[in-house]
């Protein structure tokens, strides 16, 4: 089992390397020359050439890639072109914000979603299952920004219960922070609960359809007992996968929610950076997102290996 886990970690690292190469290559697609972007209207051919040399832009792409990768591994994310500040100073606080919001949403949504999914699976085809499925479907089908807007309308503008602006700053006390981020978190909770619940239900059901569970039913065991004793241990791995997948979404896919609530997260920051052709920023942010995704997936896989009864007790 240790071997399997090590193998999975190695695979994760390899994937990250490939991701870095893809990001580097991809950002080279963005039009516009970095040197002329910096110099703007004051550019002369001489100053351009000098700056290009200064920035190492005259080197072949693979050399620049290696320099960049080396910097990234050692924690040097480079300088932002537009801001003339170290990328790290700009990026990490926003990444922290993104993680905080993701954590808020995940802490609320994961238990609810898994429980609802289990409950729906247990009562497959029943009123509860059907009802909750329709509700979940409605939430999955609404664009998230529209959901956010409805929440603002009712909770913020109409009844003034919560702020529509996720205005956070360093040194804020926790209570204020919770209040400020509740609406965006709630939007994300609604979207991910619906999603996760549906996926959990599917995962549990597919386990329940397997032969040995059928056998357990045939032996006359009660549904609850079958689910808890037989189906759940085997469904654990897929459920962990579902959860990891949704947390990855909470970290990497919330640009629109950040935009609606004016939340200072990494997603919105990255969109700005793309618009400004600020390559070091785009690369660093994409790398952070990629790493988050790879790490979450690896963790989920390792958890699956650890949770799998058959792998735990090798034949």
């Amino acid at each position: 089992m240790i071997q399997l886990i090590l193998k999975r970690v190695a695979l994760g690292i390899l994937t990250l390397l490939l991701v870095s190469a893809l990001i580097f290559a991809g950002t080279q697609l963005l039009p516009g020359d970095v040197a002329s972007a910096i110099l703007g209207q004051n550019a002369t051919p001489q100053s351009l050439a000098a700056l290009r040399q200064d920035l190492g832009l005259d080197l072949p792409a693979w050399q620049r890639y290696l320099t960049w990768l080396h910097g990234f591994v050692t924690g040097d994310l480079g300088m932002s072109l537009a801001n003339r500040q170290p990328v790290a100073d700009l990026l990490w606080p926003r990444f922290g914000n993104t993680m905080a919001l993701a954590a808020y949403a995940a802490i609320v949504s994961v238990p609810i979603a898994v429980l609802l999914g289990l409950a729906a699976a247990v009562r497959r085809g029943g009123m509860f299952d059907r009802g909750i499925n329709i509700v979940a479907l409605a939430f999955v089908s609404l664009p998230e920004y529209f959901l956010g807007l409805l929440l603002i309308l009712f909770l913020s503008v109409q009844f003034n219960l919560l702020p529509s602006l996720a205005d956070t700053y360093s040194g804020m006390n926790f209570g204020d922070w919770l209040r400020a981020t509740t609406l965006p978190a709630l939007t994300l909770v609604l979207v991910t609960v619906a999603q996760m619940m549906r996926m959990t239900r599917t995962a549990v059901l597919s386990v329940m359809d397997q032969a040995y569970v059928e056998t357990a039913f045939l032996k006359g065991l009660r549904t609850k007992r079958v689910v808890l004793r037989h189906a759940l241990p085997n469904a654990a791995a897929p459920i962990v996968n579902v959860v990891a997948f949704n947390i990855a979404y909470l970290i990497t896919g919330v640009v629109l929610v950040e935009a609606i609530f004016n939340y200072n997260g990494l997603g919105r920051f990255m969109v700005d950076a793309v618009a400004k052709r600020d390559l070091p920023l785009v690369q660093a942010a994409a790398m952070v997102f990629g790493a988050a995704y790879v790490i979450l997936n690896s963790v989920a896989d390792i958890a699956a290996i650890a949770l799998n009864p058959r792998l735990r007790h090798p034949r």
Partner: protein
Amino acid sequence: MSQNKSSFDLSRRQFIAGAAGLGLTTLASGLIVPSAFAQEATPKRGGVLKLGIGGGSTTDNFDVRVLNDWVPVNQAYMTFNGLVEIDKDNMVQPELFESWEPSADAKEWTFKIRQGVTFHNGKALTAEDILYSLNLHRGEASTSAARSTAGQFTDVVKVSDTEIKIVLDSGNADLPYILSDYHFLIVPEGFEDWTKPIGTGPFVLESYEPGVRARFTRNESYWKPNTAWVDAVEVIVINDIAARTNAMMSGQVHAINQLDFKTVDLLKRNPNLEVVQSAGGQHFTFLMDCTQSVYADNNVRMAIKYAIDREQLLTTALRGYGKLGNDHPIPVTDPFYAADLPQRAYDPEKSKFYLKEAGLDALNIELSASDAAFSGAVDAAAIFQGTAAASGITLSIKREPSDGYWSNVWMKAPFSMGYWGGRPTADQMLTIAYSSTSAQNDTHWKNEAFDAKLIEARALLDNAKRKEIYAELQQMISDDGGAMIPMFGDYLDAVSTKLGGVTTHPMFNFMGARLAEKVWLEA
């Protein structure tokens, strides 16, 4: 206010003497004053003012040379003072310059420096500080956006500890107005760390996250009487207009700038806020780069100018909160407005005629549009697309993202949308956007005759003659320039009814970007 008033009267007299009774009429007639602000109220001290401002970016800083959007400009006015100030009636008022005296030909101006003013770090304001601050914008190597404006200062010298002199390359009766440019702000001599600004302004920067938020506290030793009422100001950058309006409607901020024209009538129904509508020189532009592709041919430019239905644009995109434009940047409220120039109308036939002159049967062009130019710009582009079709012009709209629009698209795309905030004088407006040497000539239109006449008009003390030349200049831009200017838009802000001291202002949103200094919080 009395102290201020008397010095104003003095300077005004002197100004008039120098400018030979220039007679700049006020813009007050163009202003609509919301009822709640008409009555006098007693100012109150204290409270934290929260402002939701659109027009900020993570690249913002306090470098007075590069201020280019609403958030940095508003924040700069909280931190720094100018040399002069434009009041709500579009009149120049003393600020760090206490009074001034021009020579008879308006070429040499002597300014008295206000005494007893200190910077946030306790240092007293001196003539050297002012020289340093002005010199930031001078010389070929300067990175200042006001470089071309400052280019007319051939010399800036210290006369005594309390006086400095500005020598111009040619006479300019409007110099005090020119000094109101928001780039001409005063920092201590040798100051360079723009992330930790030190000024003489009403508020001191406490914390700063560019493009996100900033917090200022009151400068307890601020020199200007009857200002800086609130204890602290929090600026929250909200670029998205929907998010900005939501924040206002849910009462999270006390004021927001740049309202959505489309929903302003609906917003007005909210009893907790007031809409402040100020007419001024703000105008919206469709910019053709006169050096690029088909736009180098004036026939094409004329064809495009006749292909837009201005009336429809004004009523639809601006909901009537503005005035028709005549392809030049001078508003009807300006004393030098060319009233005799016939209003250009929507005329597909004329448009076709000009296309034919250009040797074209049809025209396929792409317009770069973004709501960064103004709220509703993309809709305006779509309306233009509809009316242009009748002239055989096929317009495709390239919707650009708001972020990065000014650095990536403006002045770079062959056909793009933009806007100009008004300037206090016609000369300034014409110089900054249309003179050949201006760094912000956003149509790259170069016309030697125009440049020469512009300089000629600048030094003239004969008002009638001056008006004649300015009319000519407006016509040149209208008939030859690269900017199609279909409309002027009013400045629209929303402020909480809890705010006192709010007035309209002909220069920019938020009372000439000085709202924080002037307002107070009721109870």
